[in-house]
């Protein structure tokens, strides 16, 4: 007789980038950064719900695998350094 050893798969989910796939496939427009206009204020980074902007010394880097194209970064950029463009 075998005793029950718990469920055959882990009950905990794995922390993953892209837990819902390559979500940039949802978008119909994408942000394009003009680094010359960027003042490094980080507004685009702090307001991104998709965690799709990282910040380097040169300015913001968009993660084009997961950016859903919401347009918040372009709307909030005080220097107008980000524009939304058709794919």
């Amino acid at each position: 007789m075998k005793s029950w050893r718990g469920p055959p798969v882990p009950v905990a989910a794995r922390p993953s980038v892209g837990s819902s796939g390559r979500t940039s496939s949802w978008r119909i427009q994408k942000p394009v950064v003009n680094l010359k206009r960027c003042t490094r204020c980080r507004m685009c980074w702090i307001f991104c719900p998709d965690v799709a902007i990282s910040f380097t010394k040169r300015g913001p880097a968009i993660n084009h695998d997961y950016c859903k194209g919401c347009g918040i970064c372009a709307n909030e950029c005080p220097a107008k350094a980000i524009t939304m463009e058709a794919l």
Partner: protein
Amino acid sequence: MREELVEEELFAPGHRACAGCGATLAVRLALKALGKNVIVANATGCVEVISTPYPETAWRVPWIHAAFENAAAVASGVEAALKSLGRRGVKVVAIAGDGGTADIGLQALSGAVERGHDFIYICYDNEAYMNTGIQRSSATPFGAWTTTTPVGRVKRGKDRPKKDVPAIIAAHGAPYVATASVAYPIDLIKKLRKAAATEGPTYIHIHCPCPPGWRFDSDKMIEVARLAVLSGAWILYEIKNGRLNVTIKPPKRRPVSDYLKMQGRFKHLTDAEIAEIQRTVDERCRHLGVG
């Protein structure tokens, strides 16, 4: 801004939130404020649904899915267990939406505050049941259209005011209660850190616009959140041991119509109805000393 904000992202990209989701931004910012030494109990709701398509999850911290009504009760149990194991340095955080807080989970929250558990409760308030299709909650504001407060000849959206959950939790005697907004991330992060540094039950209520539910374009999410604060429709304050402190005072309040007119859920409102809402906002601002 840099000293307040860490680079590390504890909420991973590639989650399934709608584009421009205020609630998801609230959670991302909250995790920046709190860091890795947390255990999260997360009620059913948008944030749970969008973050954890089993067997994967966007959460890079320990996270428990609670039922709709019992995020605060699960947090209570985890906190009591940590205390009885003598484990220190881990903060327990309950997270729920306005449905899971103001309606379905209010009683569990009330009980956890009364028992005095050492935990933070975060309500991300998008002012209706959003992931099930925009049904009104008690946190839906007066006049707002939802699918269960329709607009027609008889009804003009919700005919009752928004339930004031921060005031209700303050009336429980919680040592720290604050409102926050995703449009004011530094203010939000400071408040979460104060909550984390407070022993006992603390409550942070975050205003989180929802583009599909409130009917506006996703790029305007922060603009809508900011206008709520600038018009006095949403007031940023903290209540520390019973003393109120407004943390962001708009220099000159914008008319509430600037906020309402950005959103489709309010597009049916007549000038008279907007004037009535303005009157209520003015009265509340006076009462809280916003000016």
